[in-house]
């Protein structure tokens, strides 16, 4: 494929501002990782993943929409298969079964499912709207299959994210108001269901609403970290949060940023993420191809909602969910998955598509 890759053409067609903003996000992640990890092992890993993510993103952004669909279908099938394998083999980490281990790598298939699935769901939705109702059936079945495979791990946060994003796609595609309300009810129902059937979800939610019940939990450390940060933070590497909680470099990376780099820096990260989301969404207004529109909606909302859930959790606005901050948190699966997502987004927003 590389022989087909024309850097000049690519640069001409790409949405340059978004590409730069996304790259800054990646650099912020590297900076935080550097200040977070005194041992070079983690930092080196992060750096390797960040650099490979960067090239994966560039490569994917050069593809044509039609190729994207085919690639997505191929990988979706592979990762659904991986999800099944994860459930069959027992690799339990912290009460859930999310990881697939081979050749010394551990891989989280549910992370990879996201970008591929939202491309395909967009295509199925459009086929359905165009009158091929058979495709809607496939859409619903595939959605139920994937979400039940993930909730069985159990990974409630990821299921919730996929559900919300899927809902956004349907909403933009013109879901009737009646079904919008129905879906909102379904989300509510799903929340109650997981509260009563999953102990750790219940524990977290109880903790959220009743801070007296448990001792000093992660979220209290997280809030204290923010408080310690002030305007400019304590300086890179000076925080203590990372010593106190085990998920500091993933679920609570934002709190680490707050403590070490301060309010201004946190606001910049939020502004950065928000700008990327809004720029992608605004681009839709000029577009015509329904498949591309719904795909972009899915990918953008997936990124936007995931970041939001991560930030809200670390700020104790919602109960902790255990979700990474795309491109910033440590973790190979999350980072590669984010690079695929951004690669797809950039591919779908290339300039020439406007003029078609």
């Amino acid at each position, binding site marked *: 494929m590389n022989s087909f890759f024309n850097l000049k053409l690519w640069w001409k067609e790409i949405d340059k501002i978004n590409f730069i903003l996304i790259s800054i996000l990646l650099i912020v992640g590297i900076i935080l990782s550097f200040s977070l990890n005194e041992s070079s092992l983690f930092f080196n890993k992060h750096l390797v993943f960040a650099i490979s993510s960067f090239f994966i993103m560039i490569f994917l952004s050069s593809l044509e929409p039609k190729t994207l669909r085919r690639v997505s279908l191929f990988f979706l099938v592979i990762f659904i298969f991986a999800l099944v394998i994860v459930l069959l083999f027992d690799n339990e980490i912290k009460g859930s079964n999310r990881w697939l281990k081979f050749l010394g790598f551990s891989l989280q298939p549910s992370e990879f499912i996201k970008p591929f699935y939202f491309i395909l769901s967009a295509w199925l939705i459009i086929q359905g709207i165009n009158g091929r109702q058979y495709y*809607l059936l496939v859409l619903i079945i595939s959605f139920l299959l994937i979400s039940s495979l993930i909730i069985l791990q159990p990974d409630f946060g990821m299921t919730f994210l996929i559900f919300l994003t899927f809902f956004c796609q349907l909403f*933009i595609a013109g879901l009737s108001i009646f079904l919008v309300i129905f879906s909102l009810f379904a989300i509510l129902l799903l929340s109650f269901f997981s509260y009563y059937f999953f102990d750790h979800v219940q524990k977290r939610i109880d903790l959220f609403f009743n801070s007296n019940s448990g001792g000093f939990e992660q979220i209290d450390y997280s809030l204290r970290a923010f408080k310690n940060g002030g305007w400019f933070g304590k300086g890179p590497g000076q925080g203590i949060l990372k010593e106190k909680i085990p998920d500091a470099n993933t679920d609570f990376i934002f709190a680490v940023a707050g403590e070490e780099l301060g309010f201004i820096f946190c606001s910049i990260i939020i502004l950065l993420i928000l700008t990327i989301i809004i720029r992608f969404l605004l681009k839709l207004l000029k577009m015509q191809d329904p498949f591309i529109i719904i795909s972009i909606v899915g990918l953008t909302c997936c990124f936007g909602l995931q970041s939001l859930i991560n930030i809200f959790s670390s700020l104790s606005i919602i109960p902790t969910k255990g979700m990474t901050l795309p491109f910033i948190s440590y973790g190979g699966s999350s980072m590669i998955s984010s690079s695929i997502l951004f690669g797809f987004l950039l591919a779908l927003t290339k300039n020439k598509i406007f003029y078609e």
Partner: protein
Amino acid sequence: MIIQSKKFKIFDSDALRKFHKRIFFSIVVFLCCYFLAVFRIADVMVLEINLKKNQNYSLIPERGKIYDRNGQLLSTTVNSHSLFVNAQKIKKNKKILSKKISSIIDINEEEIYKKLTSNKKFVYLKRNISPKEHQKIIELGEINLQTSLEKKRIYPFRNIGSHIIGYVDVDNNGLAGIEKSYDENLKKGEDIYLTLNINLQNASTNALLKTINKFSAESGSIIIMDITNSEILSLVNYPDFDSNNVNESNSNQRLNRALQSNYEMGSTFKPITVAMGIDSGIIDQNMIFDVSKPIKNKIEDWDPCNCSLNVKEIVVRSSNIGTAQIAEKIGKDNQINFFKKIGFYEPINIKLNEAAKPYGQPYHWGEIETMTIGYGHGFAITPLHLAVAYSGILNQGIKTDPKIIIDDKIKNYKKIINKDTSRYISYLLRSVVQETKITGPKIRIEGYDIGGKTGTAELINSQNNYDKDLNRTIFISAFPMSNPKYLILSFIDKPKRKKANNFSITSATVNAPLVKDIIIKIIEILKLPKVDNEHILNAATSTKYNQINAIN
């Protein structure tokens, strides 16, 4: 179905051409959410509007203390230090360092080495180090060994009362006993006053230990209760443990036998059977029972006699044959009803998580079982069940829930038998001490009107047979019988036959002297005055029973 219906629309028609509104809507939602996040960060980080959660943390009160009934401190919290290490910063000489640390904090050298090489930033080497250890660690001069201030729970009386008081984990969450069942109150900073008298507790612990050693017994329990208000004054189990060092104990030591274990109670059930017979009017005191022949070749007496006995003699001689006949007259249904009434079908209503459900008779309960249960075989309850039932019977027939906390109000008044029956049972228990030739002399104390009943149960050995050498000996005792106030229940499991004790392992040999020791201690500690004999005879037992006594 939905898809096929023509009127029902999943998607609004031509929506895709008018999707702009919905895109704008989404953008607004995202904007709002992210601004909420910015506002929240500003709120937490800069504006110093204190968060509820942080306030709560800083205002967490110190865990409440636990006292005995006289205000003796049983459990409290002190400051202590925990030793941790930033293993990533320790670069060299890990072997030597771990050896040095090991010699100070008394933890396996390899374990420490493993932690030093773990490449983690925060590893506890030891929670709650002593001041001496702290000083030595400082002298080591390794800056990456750090200590953090923590709160540690301590128990000044160590093993004394540990089964009741319980213990906590390293984060001071209650795990057993009062620490667990009153965890919420303690966490709010409330102090708890127990009904225990720590001096009595100490005395009964020592007495129990002496007996256990004397007979090389396996385990034992003692319960002392105030009959008039059901307060538990002392509750001891052996083997026991030190609440300060729970990790060094095993589950056998932590078992609160008096509350958690179910046992067959042997002959101590006989007065209960008599009480249900008399109270229901099925038998009266003058009835005579022929005890010369074993029943169905199964029910025999320890001390056979070719004679007939009245009710009192049956209890005093502890006749299985006689009691079996009484139980047969009472019948299964009345038996079950009475057991329900005196609480043998429910866990004891006491706020201690250890209080277990009684085992009862889960298998077959036919005519023969009704008879054997009458004298305490084939029905298992916890020692506390027996103590509470006796306490109710002796408290003029009024049973209440036992109390372990001082300010508990007396709960669940329940009349279980008539006053007259209660008095009659007191009279029987007194007669056992006054009239038996083996038990009586071992427990009598001049001037204190003591009553009691022995019980001995043979246990099943590894071959699944009842074994004459494996006994559980029980003695339930109360005084003064004129107006019962103190109840003492003692339990010894598997005493060994020894020459010094004439190879006897009956309740009379094992438990009677133990209970006597304890009663002497109660008299000493609570400064109970002697009552002269005549006064007892006049006030204590009604003339009616004295007459019966005279006739027999």
